[in-house]
């Protein structure tokens, strides 16, 4: 295996994952032989990330903190080609879903994953799910500390944690190490934000009780500043309080956000602090050497500083408008001079957001090997990231991505749409999401137009479970079923930017599927007619309110 700049499995991890594969192989054999009923088997397959969806089984593969090495992405491509239909769907939880896995092949697929230190455990069920992180981690210019060190520590603590394997409901943790939150930490069950206090110490702001779904909530800060070595003890205390008081009588009220809402943040803090007081100096208080050992595995690649400006890049910028736009939207500053972070857009016009073929995955892996230290990240916005690209290499990376169809200069723009799989795949969905996203991205495909519109996040969910994060879209679109007809409810003003996190407000009556594009067009036209200089769509909405948008939409549809 090539060198990586993130955690590699030790013997304990390898044994644990291998044993799980063997156990699941036997469970599948017994199910097919009729020795286990579906009722007995279902929790076993879900624990291994295997769902039964509309048309087939779906395998949700954990990509810890969204970080992949090139050989892992190649393995995902190989698995998708060998055991699925040759493509996969990158999700808003930084995972990969394969939509056509056969039950009889699932153990082999998991064994193949284990070859590259991956698995599908805890991607389902009422446990602590795959921990997500800033997709620019380890490269971002604004980063205080790499959050993946802490994601890995949480991963090791939470994997098959006996006390937290049967929580009242699923539990999602996100960590950011930057003041510019790219991990949506305020809308997770627990969000952790690393920051530096006036004494120069780095610790966590602990945010609890956020979430989307049926009842969207913005998390409350339980601790302004938690010393880093106290993280696991504080998390354990919080989970214990949730496990004790979280509601198990009502599925819709079982998430920690409901508990925090019902008892209030102050009472929640008291309970957690009381629990914490009894365990703060327990074995969960991490020794410095343990933290350092994990941190060493995330040691950044050695990148020699280079000139910040490349003549080659500047020449192409002037020569090629698409490249110039791509530099503006898909390239972010790196903490090492002469390097950049590149986002490969998995949202070419008219495509299903977040989908990639096996050939595309292999192409991305090749680019990572050649130009990004063999590393790839998955963003919760369903794109792929090359975290360490020399500025000098940007033209060749752009051309290579263009050959894959992933060079669309649309990151953060109106066609960079988040969408869940929706009713085309999902057993829970009420309406389709992907075809709606395809129509919108086709309608707004022109790059000049997109860049004129500026930053605008559209997020689409096919049901109230909100896998497409519609509550926090500048324009949120929620598919609903009314008497067998798909209707789409629009909301405006959602946001996950730190300090501005907001849940969108429903605009008015839902519109029919064939009117969604017209409705979005009317929203955009209202913004373009009324924006002030430098205002994004969501800024204009905040300034002028919903009324002008509403009037124009309902006149149009």
């Amino acid at each position, binding site marked *: 295996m090539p060198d990586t700049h993130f955690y590699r499995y030790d013997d304990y991890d390898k044994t644990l994952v291998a044993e799980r594969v063997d156990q699941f192989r036997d469970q599948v054999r017994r199910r097919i032989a009729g020795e286990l009923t579906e009722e007995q088997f279902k929790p076993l397959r879900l624990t291994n990330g295997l769902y039964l969806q509309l048309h087939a089984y779906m395998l949700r593969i954990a990509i810890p903190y969204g970080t992949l090495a090139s050989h892992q992405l190649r393995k995902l491509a190989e698995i998708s080609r060998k055991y699925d239909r*040759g493509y996969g769907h990158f999700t808003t939880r930084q995972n990969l879903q394969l939509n056509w896995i056969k039950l009889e092949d699932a153990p082999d697929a998991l064994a193949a994953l284990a070859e590259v230190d991956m698995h599908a455990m805890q991607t389902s069920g009422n446990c602590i799910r795959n921990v997500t992180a800033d997709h620019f981690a380890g490269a971002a210019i604004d980063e205080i500390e790499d959050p993946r060190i802490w994601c890995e520590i949480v991963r090791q603590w939470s994997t098959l944690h006996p006390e937290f394997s049967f929580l009242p409901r699923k539990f999602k943790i996100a960590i950011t190490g930057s003041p510019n939150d790219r991990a949506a930490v305020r809308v997770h069950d627990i969000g952790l934000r690393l920051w530096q206090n006036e004494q120069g110490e780095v610790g966590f702001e602990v945010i609890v009780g956020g979430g989307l779904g049926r009842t969207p909530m913005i998390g409350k800060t339980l601790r302004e500043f938690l010393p880093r070595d106290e993280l696991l003890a504080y998390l354990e205390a919080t989970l214990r309080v949730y496990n004790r008081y979280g509601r198990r009588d009502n599925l819709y009220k079982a998430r920690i956000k409901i508990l925090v809402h019902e008892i209030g943040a102050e009472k929640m803090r008291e309970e957690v602090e009381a629990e914490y007081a009894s365990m703060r100096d327990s074995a969960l208080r991490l020794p410095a050497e343990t933290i350092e050992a994990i941190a060493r595995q995330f040691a950044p690649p050695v990148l020699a500083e280079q000139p910040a400006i490349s003549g080659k890049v500047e020449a192409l910028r002037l020569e090629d408008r698409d490249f110039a736009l791509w530099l503006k939207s898909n390239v972010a500053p790196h903490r090492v001079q002469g390097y950049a972070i590149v986002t490969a857009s998995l949202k070419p016009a008219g495509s299903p957001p977040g989908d990639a073929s096996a050939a595309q995955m292999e192409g991305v892996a090749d680019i990572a090997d050649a130009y990004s230290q063999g590393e790839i990240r998955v963003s919760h916005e369903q794109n792929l990231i090359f975290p360490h690209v020399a500025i000098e290499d940007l033209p060749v990376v752009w051309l290579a991505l263009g050959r894959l*169809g992933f060079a669309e200069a649309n990151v953060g723009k109106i066609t960079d749409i988040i969408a869940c799989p929706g009713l085309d795949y999902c057993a829970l969905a009420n309406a389709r999401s992907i*075809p709606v996203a*395809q129509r919108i991205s086709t309608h707004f495909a022109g790059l000049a137009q997109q860049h004129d519109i500026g930053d605008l996040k559209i997020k689409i969910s096919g049901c109230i479970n909100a896998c497409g994060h519609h509550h926090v879209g500048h324009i949120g679109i929620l598919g609903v079923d009314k008497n067998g007809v798909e209707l789409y409810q629009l909301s405006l003003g959602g946001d996950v930017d730190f300090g501005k996190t907001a849940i969108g407000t429903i605009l008015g009556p839902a519109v029919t599927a064939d009117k969604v594009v017209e409705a979005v067009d009317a929203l955009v036209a209202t913004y373009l007619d009324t924006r002030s200089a430098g205002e994004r769509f969501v800024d204009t909405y905040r300034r002028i309110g919903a009324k002008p948008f509403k009037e124009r939409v309902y006149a149009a549809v």
Partner: protein
Amino acid sequence: MAKNLSGELQVASANRLVDGMVVWLDDAGQWTDRLERAAIARDPRGSEILLERARAESFTVVDPFLVAVSEDDAGVIEPLSLREKIRASGLTFDAIAAEAVRYA
């Protein structure tokens, strides 16, 4: 062409255990991946019997259930709900092919 949209017509469906594929119960009590071969229950009592038969034959499938369908004069049946239409006919868009490097 007239269609019976009453909702009284039902077929039994499930997902095949080994691969999850959508199947329907035929008149011979076999699970088939062809909707046109599905056994049709034409009244409430017939639906009850069909579901019982489906459950009795569920060794190779997961969670049988009834699906309301329409039937035209030529005997062509189609699920009434969008969800079941999608289960019967597949994705409503073209998924990218394994070797495709661009979405077409």
